[in-house]
């Protein structure tokens, strides 16, 4: 039953959802670029791909810190239950991000070991993405909790299941789509044509995965089934499903255009947005499915207010100077100029 009272907890849940969405789309394309590296063997191509995100990757990754930090601050009980439950995927993600992050600097410092750091870039991007997808799937499956003890009560491999592996692979396809469509915007000529082809392939894969995950999810928990398929809710399923297909079709069409090269990327973002809406419909109002609601996990009011005051001013400012930074580095990456 949806609760429409607009209290601080709901505000924080929406804000946190927004932060996670921004992280997924921003770091999605730069992780995607790492996963796409094996398709491009030439050093010049790889240099160009990395340079297209070199000035912005750190800011993108910072949204992950805000996501974790925001969960910690606004829903500390949820943070304390979810993170130990997803211990292995989270540790794997953190270590993979180490390899991915240092590759941005290390691969320029050596001729001999560049292949090693490239491999680290690829492995780091891939493992981090897969781990994030697995974590999402594990969360949706539900986390076993001892409510009285306020502690995780499940096993050590609960996160590992066919469903979470599916969501892991799905996210990899999705990030490859974001990476490829980003590079369609930033590259020209033969490289761009190859990116358009890859965007097509990963677009099909992503929509396929969205379908598979969407059909499987309602059967994970009774609550999910009810939200999507019972009574009038079936209209919701039709609406979201239809929107996914429509956006997908528009995206494939836009890949064939000569101009408006940003359309494929924006439509890929829209696909992610629709997936988020679907995720929200499944989870609300649970933050730890299906045991703990947002209200049960929420921080005390004094904490919520203190943070919201600052966040409501700071987040728009952050978005503004982030947009400025992207604008400074707008346009195609020039293979001749490099970064001297």
């Amino acid at each position, binding site marked *: 039953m949806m609760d429409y009272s607009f209290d601080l907890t709901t505000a924080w849940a929406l804000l946190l959802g927004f932060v996670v969405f921004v992280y997924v789309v921003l770091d999605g394309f730069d992780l995607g670029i790492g996963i796409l590296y094996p398709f491009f063997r030439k050093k010049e191509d790889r240099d160009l791909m990395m340079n297209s995100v070199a000035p912005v990757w*750190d800011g993108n990754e*910072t949204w992950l810190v805000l996501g974790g930090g925001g969960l910690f601050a606004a829903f500390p009980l949820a943070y304390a239950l979810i993170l130990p439950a997803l211990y292995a995927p989270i540790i794997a993600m953190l270590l993979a991000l*180490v390899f991915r992050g240092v590759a941005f600097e290390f691969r320029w410092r050596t001729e001999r070991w560049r292949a090693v750091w490239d491999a680290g870039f690829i492995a780091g991007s891939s493992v981090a993405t897969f781990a994030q997808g697995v974590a999402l799937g594990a969360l949706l499956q539900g986390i076993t909790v001892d409510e009285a003890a306020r502690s995780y009560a499940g096993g050590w491999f609960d996160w590992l299941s066919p469903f979470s592996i599916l969501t892991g692979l799905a996210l990899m396809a999705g990030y490859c789509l974001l990476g490829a469509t980003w590079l369609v915007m930033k590259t020209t000529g033969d490289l761009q044509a190859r990116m358009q082809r890859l965007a097509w392939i990963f677009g099909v894969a992503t929509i396929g995965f969205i379908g598979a995950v969407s059909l499987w999810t309602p059967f994970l928990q009774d609550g999910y089934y009810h939200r999507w398929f019972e009574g009038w809710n079936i209209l919701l399923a039709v609406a979201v499903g239809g929107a996914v297909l429509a956006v997908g079709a528009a995206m494939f069409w836009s890949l064939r255009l000569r101009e408006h090269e940003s359309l494929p990327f924006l439509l890929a973002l829209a696909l992610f947005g629709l997936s988020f809406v679907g995720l929200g419909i499944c989870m609300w109002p649970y933050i730890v499915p299906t045991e703990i609601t947002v209200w049960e996990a929420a921080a005390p009011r004094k904490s919520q207010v203190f943070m919201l005051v600052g966040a409501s001013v700071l987040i728009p400012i952050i978005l503004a100077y982030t947009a400025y930074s992207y604008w400074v580095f707008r346009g195609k990456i020039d293979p001749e100029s490099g970064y001297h």
Partner: protein
Amino acid sequence: MDTFLGLDAVMLARMQFGFTVAFHFIFPSVSIGLASYLAVLNAMYLRTRDEAYLRLFKYWLKIFAICFAMGVVSGIVMSYQFGTNWSVFSDKAGPVIGPLMAYEVLTAFFLEAGFLGIMIFGRDKVGPGLHMFACAMVAIGTAISATWILSVNSWMQTPQGYSIAENGQFVPEDWLAVIFNPSFPYRLAHTLTASYLTTAFIVGGVGAYHLLRGRTTNPGVRTMFSMAMWMAALIAPLQIFLGDMHGINTLEHQPAKVMAMEGHFESHPDGAPLILFGLPDQEAKTVRYAIEIPKLSSLILKHDLNAPLDGLDTIPDEDEPPLAVVFWSFRVMVGIGFAMLGVGMWSLLARFRGRLYDARWLHRAALVMAPSGLVAVIAGWITTEVGRQPFVVYGALRTAEAHSPLAASAVGASLIAFVVIYFVIFGAGVAYILKLMAHAPELGERGVREEPGPIRTAGITPQQQMRESGHDMGAEGA
């Protein structure tokens, strides 16, 4: 009992946190100092148009970029580790600490990350004013970051401004009291100053290295060595003073920690001695082979030779920190601090004699002292964090009760993964930084993205370049 290789889950979690945070802290420590140094260099260049400053800026920018990246990736590990390995602490202290960390991300991390791209890659894309602004924002972002995290850590040491809810959570009652807790100003001043001092010695060490290699006429080398030695001379004494103030504050709020630092197992009602060295014996509760100066500890801590100072005999056993670790880490830190002071004073002497760039023994000392700041900050952090034990929130929550319900084997596995990967990755990073440092700052200094390889001469005469690289022109018959 659930153990892995003989260690229980709490101990493994502590080792993992300690290891990852020690590695992590090295990088922001240098980044804070370097970011400010780079901002200063860029500002000097804009003001004086002296090419040496631009050379130095580009030179240190490459090193800064590597250091910053390592700080970022090791930092994300910390923000998630509170939840993965210290979930009880996260649940209980989250309402107080969580918002402070969120503000750190909102006001500092985004600021640094947002402008870093322009600072590193954008000099030719935005005007000089905007580029300078970006450099300043990165420097300010690093300092703001230190401020918030030190407020968090200080609250854990001297908590105030909270109440305890029925569900066991710490609930903030007065945010100003929480943020500006009693130890915060001292720890902030001490840590920020440590950061600048650490960077000064690294810069000074690199300058000294190149001076020893004969590059005594290279303007970039001379400038960086001189700037670093000014910092050593002025900031090292300041840091010793700040440390003293910090110690007196700690005596008031965390007496057991000071007792451990001093090695005072027993109370001294009539002036406590300063124990310089000795071997603490936790079982027998005494310091063996102690070399001590009578009454000096009371003089330093209470400014009165005969003031009584309590010892660990007044503290229940279960509330005592491990003395030996704190005792030695404190001495390492203080020893290095005084060595830094020595180098600073020596450099002043050399400077007034007009021999700053020729005093080879000074240069050797500066080279040896190059990494000393890093050792000192780690030693200092060990002193303060191990000295806080057995509490994670001093007096309010014990470390042993704050960890996640994880099997020892799970924590053991992640600990091993962190140790191996950190040594490989950060070892490589340090190696690349050392490689960059081994080159002197050159005319036509390369940008961040240029390939390693033969140096481009970019329109200067071969003679000038050779002289700056340390060739003896006379001997080569030029």
